[in-house]
């Protein structure tokens, strides 16, 4: 969609036009869904997060000034809601599962949640530290630029690069281990 059209839709949605907002959202919802899914690895939760994010984005739209792209702004909302979801899940597991120990700074879902899952990459991804996971999802899996990821995560391009490299290194090691285990 041309940038001018998108700006026009944003302006109309800011005025309260639901149809304009729907058209705007249709352009970005699939990528936003992929970001949420990358974090929660569950279609139902990803749908809930995206729905919540789209409502929150509409409510906050009058304050959107266009400093960043709409997609970047929406991704930021999706990512924050996804992180809240992962944290809440982790806290609930700690409360409800005796002996469940969360690895400090890893904030991942317990491995047994994915015991039946075939996709090793996604399983390994879930075992990365939060920030590394965010960078790998946005940069590697979603194909956003270093600058866009930096904008979403509020960090420098150098930091994005470092987290990406470390995240991918860990991912490769974990992947090798899972493949060996299966073999």
């Amino acid at each position: 969609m041309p940038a001018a059209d998108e700006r026009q839709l944003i302006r109309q949605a800011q005025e309260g036009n639901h149809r304009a907002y729907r058209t705007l959202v249709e352009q970005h919802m699939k990528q936003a869904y992929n970001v949420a899914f990358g974090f929660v690895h569950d279609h139902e939760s990803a749908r809930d997060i995206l729905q919540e994010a789209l409502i929150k984005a509409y409510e906050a739209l009058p304050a959107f000034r266009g400093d960043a792209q709409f997609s970047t702004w929406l991704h930021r909302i999706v990512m924050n809601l996804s992180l809240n979801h992962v944290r809440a899940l982790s806290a609930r597991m700690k409360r409800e599962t005796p002996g469940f120990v969360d690895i400090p700074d890893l904030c991942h879902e317990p491995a047994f949640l994915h015991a039946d899952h075939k996709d090793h990459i996604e399983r390994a991804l879930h075992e990365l530290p939060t920030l590394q996971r965010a960078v790998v999802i946005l940069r590697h899996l979603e194909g956003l630029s270093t600058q866009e990821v930096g904008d979403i995560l509020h960090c420098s391009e150098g930091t994005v690069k470092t987290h990406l490299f470390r995240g991918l290194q860990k991912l490769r090691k974990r992947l090798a281990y899972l493949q060996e285990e299966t073999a």
Partner: protein
Amino acid sequence: MSSHRHIRLLLYDYAAGRLERERHTLVQRHLEGCAECREESAELRAILEKIPVGSNPAADLPPAFWQELLHDVSARLPVRPKRQILPFWVSDWVEFISVPRHQVIVGGAAVLVLCAIISGTWFAFKQEPAHTQIAAATPVGTKPPVPAVTTRLKDYLRRSKVLLVELNNMPFEEGTDVDLSLERTTSRALLHEARYLKDQPLDGRSAALISDLEKIQIALANSREREDVPGLRLIRGGIQEGNLLFKIRIAETMFTRLEDETQHADH
């Protein structure tokens, strides 16, 4: 863009084959002379062979899933109060002044105009009897606020200013929530006051300022006790966008000046 630090930022795209020709050659040349980057690049290539770029779980979902999602979202969208539709030249003007560089120019011009108005008003006051001074500061057709209302208005503006400054200076850490419980309570109290003031005979400028402040206070009053950082940024954006602190200061200056003039005339 050819320093070691910058080349390192490009290594991922180089390994993924996403660089355009010019940058690709730049990285290639750097790699010839830099063992560290060569090693990192080789490792990235090995990783990317194992982990394919791109992932699209959304592609597996049927169109009905998206239709249902959009339907659910539409059903939950709040209805915004109708805003006045601005003529195109006003929208263009708003767009023009949203550019920081233009804001400096417009700000400078506004200060000059303001100085001219203040000095003009001052001369006008000097030449007219004291009892007409307050009326001169209010637009034609509106009654001047009675002294009790003025006192409450000043107090409302002062408290709003404290709230906005506090929000602007509030420290936060990325990824953590911010405690807004106190600001929420203050905003609710200020909203009551704003409703009272809006029922009083006010000059147009004060009424408009109260309406602008009300929007921020409503956002705060409806915020969660622990708001996330993007939520706080949005509220701050609203404060800056409306130039609210600047407007409060101008209103306060005008009030002080009017009071001084009135006292001077009484003596």
